[in-house]
Every structure is written in C-alpha cells, then in structure tokens.
C-alpha cells in the first residue's frame, strides 16, 4: 500500500517537471530572436563604444590612446575635477536641506543657511570648472550639454501644461471629443522628416514665412528664426546675459516649438488614460464637501495624476536626448551650432568628421550623463509621486 501511495505523486511530479522543463525551453526559444537583435544592436554597441573610446579610430582601428579621447572632450583634468566637486557639493546641499527641514526648529535655520551656502559654493565651483573645461576641452561637444538642457527644460513643462489642459477639457465628454483627440494626436504619428521640412519653411528667415507673417499681424519686426544664433532673451528684450544664462537661441526655441507641437498629442492621450483611472467616488465626495472645480483639480486630479506626469516628464527627457531627425532637418549653418544637442554632436563627430574613437568617447560620456540624470530624477521627483 505505501508503495502505491508513493508512486502516483512521483509519476505526476516527473510529468510536471518535464512540462516545466519544456516550458523553460519554449520560453528561451520564443525570446531568442528578439533578444538576439536587441542585444546585438541595442546593448552590445554600448560595450563596443566603450572599447573603441580608448583607441585612435578613424574609419579603421588605430593605435591605443588611453584616456586621451576623453581628455579631448572634457579638457584638462583640473576643470573636470572642479566640476565633479561642484556636483558632489550640490548633492550634499540637497541632503542638508532635507535634513534641516526635519530637525528641531532651533537648528533648522542654521541647517537651511548652511545648505544655501553650500548651494552658492556649488554653483561657483560649477561655473569655474565649466569655464576651465570650455577653455581646454572641445567646445562643440561641451556646448551640447546646455543645448540639451535648454531643449528639455523648454519643451517638457510647456508640453505637459498644454497637454494637461487639453486632456482635462477632452475629459468633460463633450460631443466631438473623439474627433479632437484624433486631431491632437496627428502630429505625433506623422513622419518627422516630412513635418520638420514643413516647419523649416514656416520658421524660415524670409520676410514672407508663416512665422514672420504672423508677427506682421501684430506689427512686429520679422525675425531670423531658424537662422538666428542669438539667445531668445536678447532677441526679445535686448538683454545680453553671459553664457548659459542667456537661454536658448531663437533657432533652438523654434525647434522646441516644433517638439511641443509634435508631442502634445501623445501626452494628451496618456493624460486621458490617467484621468480615466481616477475613481469617480473621489470627485463625488469632493462635491459633497462643496469643493469648487479648482480645488478638485488641485487636491485630487493633479496629485493623483503625478505618476503619469512623472512618466511623461521622463519620456520627455529621454526624448530630448533622442531628438535627432527634426533637428537634423531644421538646423541651419547660420544657427552656429546653437541647436546641436548631444545626439547631433555625436553624429557629426562620427559621420562628418569620421573620428570614430572620439565619437565613441562622447557616447560613453553621454551614457554616464543619462544614468546620472535618470537616477537624480528618480530620487528627486520619484519621492513626491503619489501612487494609489
């Protein structure tokens, strides 16, 4: 009797184990093609770029160069070290600020003041280090950093705000909202090369371009738009601010407008999905408490949408780094490189200058920057996101 009682589970177990092993095998077989392609053209290139970055490599592999490709990009080590120190100070300042806000009131003021002092120190160090890097490093490459930052800071808040407003309106279930949703989404699905070609003519420097005719409607002077390398603030108000503080060039601002035009629709659709997932009971409860529309938006809609907003901001940031086709089509030599984001600079080093080893070093530096910023974004904003 006991033998029989044992045998049955054993046979069953064997069959189950065989089925499990089979499932494992099928799992690997099914994923293999996708994994092979993505590993070869998505992941391997990063490792290979790291390898290439230590060589002189002009079309064909040349001699070992050690860290000199990195030196060429960043300049003398002292500038880089000062700049890195500034970043460390900034992190320290943020940490102190948070600590200070949690301690007892008597020590809070002192802590906050110390944090602010550290912040000032960090900014000074960053400016000094950056200046030194610009002196000794590759200005073309280094300038891609502020350009990319402008692009991200210029486009993300704008497109999020517009998209949120439109999504809230569409969510009211007006008649025809499906039609408007489709229209808003249109720029996102259209081929970028084609739409950027159109914007190239809209923002052309001719007096008769659409952008200039629009200005003429209000009796304003025609502008150079995509051919304008001066910062927006200088063009608009005549302010001449130094370096970074001058803001993006008018050319870059035009490209940012194109980016916003393209991505608002996508953000609208994702916001709509987010709005749809907020439970109606909350709204009813708020209504019973006599909350007005603005209160409801501020205390219910906006906080509960924060995961969506965070997701879209992250996508927008990646988009700023990925931005390529439209900048490639819309850029003009007259903009003097003020529109060249990191992706553009890497492409130019590789494709136009044929400096493969150096381009690979730029790839590695950009990768490190992406890692750093993504981590920081998660730490800073990931906290204030409300998940339900």
């Amino acid at each position, binding site marked *: 009797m006991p033998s029989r009682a044992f045998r049955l589970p054993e046979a069953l177990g064997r069959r189950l184990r065989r089925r*499990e092993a089979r*499932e*494992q095998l*099928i799992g*690997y077989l*099914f*994923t293999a*093609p*996708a*994994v*092979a392609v*993505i590993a070869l*053209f*998505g992941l391997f*290139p*990063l490792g290979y*770029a790291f390898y*290439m970055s230590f060589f002189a490599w002009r079309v064909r592999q040349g001699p070992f160069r050690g860290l000199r490709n990195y030196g060429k990009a960043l300049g003398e080590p002292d500038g880089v070290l000062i700049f890195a120190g500034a970043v460390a100070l900034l992190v320290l300042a943020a940490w102190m600020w948070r600590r200070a806000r949690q301690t007892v009131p008597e020590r809070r003021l002192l802590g906050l003041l110390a944090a602010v002092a550290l912040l000032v120190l960090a900014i000074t160090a960053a400016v000094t280090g950056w200046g030194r890097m610009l002196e000794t490093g590759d200005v073309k490459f280094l300038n891609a950093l502020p350009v990319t930052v402008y692009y991200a800071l210029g486009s993300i808040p704008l497109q999020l705000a*517009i998209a949120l407003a*439109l999504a809230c*309106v569409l969510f009211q279930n*007006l008649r025809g909202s499906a039609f*408007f*949703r489709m*229209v808003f*989404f249109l720029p996102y*699905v*259209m*081929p*970028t*090369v*084609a739409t950027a*070609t*159109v914007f190239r*003519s809209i923002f052309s420097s*001719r007096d008769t*371009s*659409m952008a200039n*005719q629009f200005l003429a409607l209000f009796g304003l002077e025609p502008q150079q738009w995509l051919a304008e390398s001066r910062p927006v603030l200088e063009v608009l108000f005549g302010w001449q601010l130094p370096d970074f503080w001058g803001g993006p060039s008018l050319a870059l601002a035009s490209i940012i407008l194109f980016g916003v*035009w393209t991505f608002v629709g*996508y953000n609208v*659709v994702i916001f*709509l*999905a987010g709005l749809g997932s907020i439970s109606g009971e909350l709204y009813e409860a708020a209504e019973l408490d006599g909350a007005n529309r603005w209160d409801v938006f501020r205390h219910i809609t906006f906080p509960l949408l924060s995961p*969506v907003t965070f997701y879209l901001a992250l996508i927008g940031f*990646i988009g700023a*780094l*990925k931005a*390529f*086709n439209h900048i*490639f*089509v819309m850029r003009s030599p007259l903009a003097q490189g003020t529109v060249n984001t990191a992706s*553009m600079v*890497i*492409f130019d080093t590789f*494709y136009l200058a044929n400096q493969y080893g150096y381009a*690979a070093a730029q*790839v590695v530096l*950009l990768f490190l920057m992406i890692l750093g910023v*993504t981590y920081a974004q998660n730490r800073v904003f990931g906290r204030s996101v409300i998940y339900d």
Partner: protein
Amino acid sequence: MIESAVQRQAVLQPKTVLRIGRLSLYLVLAAGAAVVALPFCWMVSTSLMSLGETINRQWLPGTPRWQNYQTAWMEARFAVYFMNSVIITATSLAGLLTTSILAAYAFARLQFAGREIIFFGLLSTMMIPEAMTLLPSFLIIRGDVIPLPGGSWLNTLQGLTVPFMASAFSIFLLRQFFRRLPVELWDAACIDGCGHLRFLTTIVLPLSKAPLLTVSLFGFIASWDSLLWPLLVTTRETWRPLMVGLWSLVTEAGAETHLFMAGATITLLPILVIYFLVQRQFTEGIMTSGLKG
C-alpha cells in the same frame, strides 16, 4: 428685493454658466486643433503654388499647380525610393511583429529562469538614444566586428532592416495586453491538447487586434520615417528610401519651397491614410496597454 435677485440668480446661474463654460471649452479645443492643422494647410497650400507665389507669399495659390507633385516625384526619384520604402517597411514590420509577439507571449505567460532579468534588460534599451548605438551598429553592418553571412551588409535590404526587427517598446506593449487575457483561456486550450504556438496564433492573436495595430503602426512609422540609418548604410541608389529622397530634395532644391512641400505631402500621405483607418484602435491601444503595469 435683494433676496429675490439672489434667488433668481441662483436659478439662472447653472444653465448659463454651463453654456458659457461649454462654449469656452470648445474654443480651447478649436484653438488647439487650429494650431495642429495650420502647418498641414500651409504645406498643401504651398505645394500647389508657383515659385513666384511662394516668394511673394500669398496664403493660397492663384490656380493650384498639381504638376508640382509630378515634378517633385521626378526630381526626388520618388518612383524608386517609394518602392524601396515599401519593401523596407514591410520587411522590418514582418520581422518586428514576429519577434515581438513571440517574446511578449513568453514574458507574459511562460515561466523560465531569468525571465524578469532578461525583460528588464531589454526594457533598459528604451532609454538609449539611437545616436549612441549608431556607430558600433554601423561597424557591425559593415562587417568589421563580427563576420556576417555574405560579407558587408552595406547597401543591402538586410542591412537596412535587421537592426529594426525587434523593439523593446513593442514587446512591452504586447506583454501588457497578453498578461491581462484570462488564464482560463489557456486552461481550456490545454484540455484540447493545444501547444503554446498554436494557442498563440489561434486564440491570443485574434483577441489582440488593438495592441497589434498599435505596434504595427508604430513600427510602420519608425521604419518609414528613418533617415539617419539609411544615410549611413546606403552609399548607392539601389536601396535608398523615401526620406533620404525627401532630404536630398530639401538640400538640393533649396529655394524651391513648393517642390519640397509637394515631396513632404507625398511622403506623409500613406501614414495619414493608415492613421485615419486605424486611429480608434490605435489611441485605445496606447491608452490601455501603454500605461498600466
């Protein structure tokens, strides 16, 4: 007196507020739609002008010059490029769908060691800009890194399509959808002695029209819109796609705005048509499977 006025207002208010509110909402939507539509109208209008009209700039052409389209078509060698684009897009899309469906199914339904690690490894590639992988990928295709069947893949169909035959985004989107199909479906199929591949093709896929359309349209756009990669890997005319043609039209035609507007319209039309056909499933596909999870 005051009381009655207040009362009257309270009675009147909701309706008028509602009407005014609704009107202003429509105004917001209409303004948004106008901003979206204006560049397209500008494009079509300009594409029908003569050179003189584009310079003197009217809002509308005097008499529409449809022959601009013919000129653009000839000058940009669109006849060849259009066919190339169709073949390239169809090939990459077929590959993309095959690999993504299989992988997404495995990640959603099958148990195997390392599943999560592999999945998130693939997802991490979504963070990487194309410009970063471009150079090593180009060297791979040129045959410098690993030996390829048939030597260098420059100027070949496989060189243009194979790197795009898988995408983490498509896998992610399909997996989100497959995961939400009820397990009972598989149990029922299991009794009938159905294998995974048959279950996938006969039951799962017919239920997944919206996400499949979404993935297809994204794949179609990505492939149709590619400019960078074809510029790198085609040194000869043979396999040049449409966007390279449009790009050279823009750089060569220079001041002839009407021609490259006609060219842009031509490249845009196929996607416009497809989008109008599938837009409902498409936006729903993004809304339902793009976010949760």
